[in-house]
């Protein structure tokens, strides 16, 4: 009976999910909103993780996009039409994302902006592409996302490979002797540690060991033991904020005293709280600039706080910028046609984003990645080294 019960729970979960997916598909087809048209509002569809372990970031993405949409509407909309944001939950899960993307398509969206987890964003590319919808991916930045070579897919976050190069540069600057890398096995964190090894080894970095952790766990005592045992003086953790914060805490409890570098997924104001006040020394992160690091963004910050009653989080700015890039493309193209918008976005030269002036390569990624090194100081991440020199 026990064996059956576990199986049953899984079968049940699958059944529920597929029912949800089915209702999601039929909802749009049976409804009165059929396909994109040239009348009424321009709809921007957004996929973001609103449930599940990554759901905190889904809210950041949605808020950022909402803010941009509101600004555009205040300035009279796009092509004389109002803009509407339609948000669907992807739960950071490939199946849910596929269902969500299908639902958005049948709800008649013209443009797609969003995506936090690379693994769940990947299957949505083909769905949007084949339905004639251009797509700007806001936070996800796994290298797999550009492998399909779709010319109407754009990434406003730097690629994992670009981030890995920044991390390599930083490790060299710090004079790391023995490096230990950790990821959680998800597409993006794993891609980042792989890329780090790929660029690090030719650069002469000594990567002594690599471990994978389960992001749902809280006890990383075994990995902490392995870190100390390996004699590493530099750890690169690419998982999300909670596992990295706990690993930093536990590794330092076990006697690790070197540099602890985290990927952009873990750079969050919460890190200091989660890891504990005694362990905040020598914590660094690779990150794109955030509003509080930029001069002249005070006004943006203030209006964000007024609207949502909270500080913006990681990727709020990317979601905001993602909508703006898409809107600019539509404005220049004069339509929401996939090819026309894609050409217009490819034609942008130095479009002003939070992460700096943006120009997209043929692959749809930012030509200049703006990864910098931040350091944990007084409970916040602040700029440490812009790696320009």
């Amino acid at each position, binding site marked *: 009976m026990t064996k059956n019960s576990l199986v049953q729970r899984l079968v049940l979960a699958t059944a529920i999910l597929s029912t949800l997916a089915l209702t999601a598909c039929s909802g749009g087809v049976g409804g009165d909103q059929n396909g994109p048209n040239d009348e009424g509002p321009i709809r921007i569809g957004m996929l973001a993780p609103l449930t599940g372990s990554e759901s905190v970031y889904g809210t950041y993405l949605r808020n950022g996009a909402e803010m941009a949409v509101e600004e555009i509407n205040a300035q009279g909309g796009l092509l004389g039409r109002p803009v509407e944001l339609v948000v669907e939950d992807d739960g950071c899960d490939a199946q849910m994302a596929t269902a969500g993307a299908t639902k958005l398509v049948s709800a008649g969206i013209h443009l797609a902006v969003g995506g936090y987890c690379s693994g769940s964003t990947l299957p949505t590319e083909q769905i949007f592409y084949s339905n004639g919808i251009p797509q700007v991916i806001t936070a996800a930045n796994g290298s797999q996302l550009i492998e399909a070579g779709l010319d109407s897919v754009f990434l406003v976050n730097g690629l994992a490979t670009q981030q890995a190069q920044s991390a390599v540069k930083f490790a060299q600057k710090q004079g790391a002797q023995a490096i230990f890398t950790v990821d959680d096995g998800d597409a993006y964190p794993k891609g980042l540690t792989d890329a780090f090894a790929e660029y690090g080894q030719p650069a002469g970095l000594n990567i002594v060991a690599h471990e*994978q952790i389960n992001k749902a766990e809280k006890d990383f005592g075994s990995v902490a033991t392995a870190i100390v045992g390996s004699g590493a003086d530099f750890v690169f953790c690419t998982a999300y904020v909670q596992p990295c914060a706990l690993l930093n805490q536990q590794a330092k409890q076990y006697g690790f005293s070197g540099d602890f570098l985290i990927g952009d997924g873990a750079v969050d104001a919460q890190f200091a709280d989660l890891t504990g006040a005694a362990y905040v020394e020598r914590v660094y992160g690779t990150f794109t600039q955030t509003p509080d690091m930029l001069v002249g963004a005070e006004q943006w910050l203030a209006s964000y706080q007024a609207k949502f009653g909270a500080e913006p989080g990681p990727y709020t700015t990317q979601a905001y910028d993602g909508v703006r890039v898409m809107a600019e493309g539509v404005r220049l193209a004069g339509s929401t046609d996939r090819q026309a918008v894609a050409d217009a976005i490819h034609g942008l030269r130095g479009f002003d984003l939070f992460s700096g002036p943006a120009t997209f390569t043929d692959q749809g990624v930012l030509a200049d990645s703006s990864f910098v090194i931040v350091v944990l100081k007084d409970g916040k991440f602040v700029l440490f080294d812009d790696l320009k020199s």
Partner: protein
Amino acid sequence: MIQVIVNGLSVGAFYALVALGYSMVYGIIKLLNFAHGDIYMLGAYVGFVVLGALTSWLSLPTALGLVLVTLVTMALTGGAGVLMERVAYRPIRHAPRLSLLITAVGLSFALEYGVRQIFGPKPSHFPVQIDAGSVNLFGATITTARIIVILVAGVLMVVLSLFVAKTRQGRAMRAIALDAKAARLMGIDVDRTISLVFFIGSALAGAAGVLAGAVYGTIDFLMGFIIGIKAFTAAVIGGIGNLYGAMLGGVALGLLESFGVAWLGGQWRDVFSFLCLILFLTFRPTGILGGRVVERM
């Protein structure tokens, strides 16, 4: 080596505490209470709220405060367990087993997303953290927090075994596990005893939740899911329905994982522990103690 064992024991202590509730409930009404892991999560959040309230009223020393919070939390999560049984399981106790199971899965989601609705999806920072340094033992670093976890779990398990073995209610539980109908005919209040089992099981899971908050410093609404599955695994390895089996299974699973990581690397941890589950289900479905001890509970 010692390091690996201590790591395994402290994780195993959590598994054992949660597995006890799983196993006791299964022993008495043959229900796999999949919402049990979420009671652990609920315990962490109740502890979080109580601790916040407590520190704003009076200033207690950390240790005393934590003990007090643990006791209050145990009472509250125990109550939640009783309520859960009364509202969701009792009305359908004689329905087909599948209905109970689906109700349990539903309750699990209801608890997870109910807590998320109240506290938000962000992990919360537990206000008090056991963080009193570490000792060195034969070259192994052992943090005080880990020692406390092992001790607290040990004490709770000893108290529970004594309760089940020596008291009238304990005897009633064992009687119902053997044959509920006969127990009723002998004048045992079956409903009351089942409520008591839910109370104890949930109180233990709640205590584990507070401990987890105090040791790791962070709590989140999904923290109960994986430990629920692991505790289930531990209960099966030890012999589900068997009290000592749950304790043994928890510690065994913690050690298996710890050695698995040491030998094969972190990416193999879950592969290794669930492989053990499958091996046990195939070759010894009654678990380590299931065969020898005929008397369940």
